[in-house]
């Protein structure tokens, strides 16, 4: 479904991503784990069109994302839940969700999807008219995920959904990610919380200072000594 072929991304003179290739198969949950500053978010931003690779290409269902505008990437079914949630704090919960469906014109289905989001996150329904900035961190994360669902993505990119959340909430968020996947959305998940990420993913990549150093089925990686030592605290 998504193929990243040998991309190199720079921030000015800094070579942030050094020849990364990865693949996400339709229906899977693929995770990209690694320490802070390894370049995980940079890869997601590049897929979403916020950054451009200097060389290499990103192919999604035969389309080259690396030459497309960000809005066309969203239109083709790739949506990102950004790091730090980035909800529109000055707008209501409902308005945030409506913005998720910005490119869609099918009013009836939008309404249906809104109901689906509220079903999944009843707390968002209770707080529909509240400003997003007044929500708790966990609620904001739910809003960010709900907002992405509103674009009806076929591939959802999630950037550190567990960041700053209490363990119980992290569990809740991850089970929701799993549910979204089961209902047919392919997931590329970036996480520092390797333990949680490996527990729900099918396949995993380990990123270190801009390079993929290890890859394999998530179960195998969770058992690997190297990963255990570096990322699973044992």
């Amino acid at each position, binding site marked *: 479904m998504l193929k990243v072929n040998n991309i190199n991304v720079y921030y000015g003179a800094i070579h942030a991503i050094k020849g990364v290739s990865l693949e996400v198969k339709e229906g899977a949950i693929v995770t990209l784990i690694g320490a802070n500053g390894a370049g995980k978010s940079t890869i997601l931003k590049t897929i979403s069109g916020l950054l451009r690779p200097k060389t290499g290409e990103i192919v999604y269902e035969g389309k080259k994302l690396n030459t497309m505008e960000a809005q066309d990437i969203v239109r083709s079914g790739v949506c990102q839940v950004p790091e730090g949630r*980035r909800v529109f704090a000055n*707008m209501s919960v409902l308005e945030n969700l409506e913005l998720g469906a910005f490119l869609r014109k099918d009013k009836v289905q939008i309404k249906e999807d809104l109901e689906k989001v509220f079903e999944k996150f009843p707390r968002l329904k209770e707080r529909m008219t509240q400003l997003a900035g007044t929500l708790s*961190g966990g609620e904001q994360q739910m809003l960010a995920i709900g907002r992405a669902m509103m*674009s009806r993505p076929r591939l959802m990119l999630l950037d550190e959904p567990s960041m700053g959340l209490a363990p119980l909430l992290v569990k809740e968020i991850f089970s929701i990610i799993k549910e979204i996947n089961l209902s047919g959305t392919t997931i590329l998940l970036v996480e520092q919380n390797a333990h949680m990420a490996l527990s729900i993913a099918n396949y995993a990549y380990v990123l270190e200072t801009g390079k993929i150093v290890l890859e394999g089925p998530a179960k195998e990686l969770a058992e690997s000594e190297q990963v255990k030592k570096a990322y699973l605290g044992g």
Partner: protein
Amino acid sequence: MEDLLIFLQQLINGISLGSIYALIALGYTMVYGIIKLINFAHGDIYMVGAYVGFFAITKLNMSFIPALLTSMVLCSILGIIIERMAYKPLRNATRIAALITAIGVSLLLEYGGMLIVTPQPRAFPEVFPQTKISFFEGKVYMTNQQLVIFAVTLILMVLLQFIVYKTKTGKAMRAVSFDKDAALLMGININNTISATFAIGSALAAAAGVLVGIYYTSISPLMGIIPGLKAFVAAVLGGIGIIPGAVVGGFLMGIIEALVSGYGASTWRDAVAFGILILILIIKPSGIFGANIREKV
């Protein structure tokens, strides 16, 4: 009693003048909100608006409303062109580079305007023969022009409120001004949204230009400088980037100016306006409505 009547009269004058400032200040604040640029050419768009209105009425024999609409449409196109040609190439440049460019565009409009329409001030035609509505045995009155200014301003503000809060474009504008990258991830087209902001801001300035024409009956190519600066002060007073702030700031500036003039210190009115700017910058630089937004983690 006499004092109170003078005060009331100045209040009416101040609200009319404040309407003009508020309309211009809205454009300043909206553009600042979305691209963090103080568009110093904004006052000159108001001047162009006044001239378009003038020619629409005198040369094309339009009545007030068609002239107003023509002016608003042409100026919104002008606003879009200015943004695309002058500011868009500098979007990733330093803010000071864009600011200096805005001053350059302002000078271009002022002196280009002189070249085209001559520096000679022109008398704006009397669109509505003046009639006065009197209160308190004629001691306090309101002209029908003041009434029109106030009514048009009110209608435009309601319309703006509707656009910003109820339409897709308005939501996109608020999203882009809050967080550009997050807006991009929603699939919002940033360039079109910025163009829409310039178009709306410029249309409001054009309306102010036509309204000031019928109020002060004289227009010139440099007429935009002082009202433009005062509207900028109004936007800062209310809190730059905040739409209701621009409205409140605009009305406050108009009322303060009218009171200063009404109580015999009219030569001081510009000094007072800019004195206000200094005071806000010392006391509360974020303006009346500005607050430090705390982020939750």
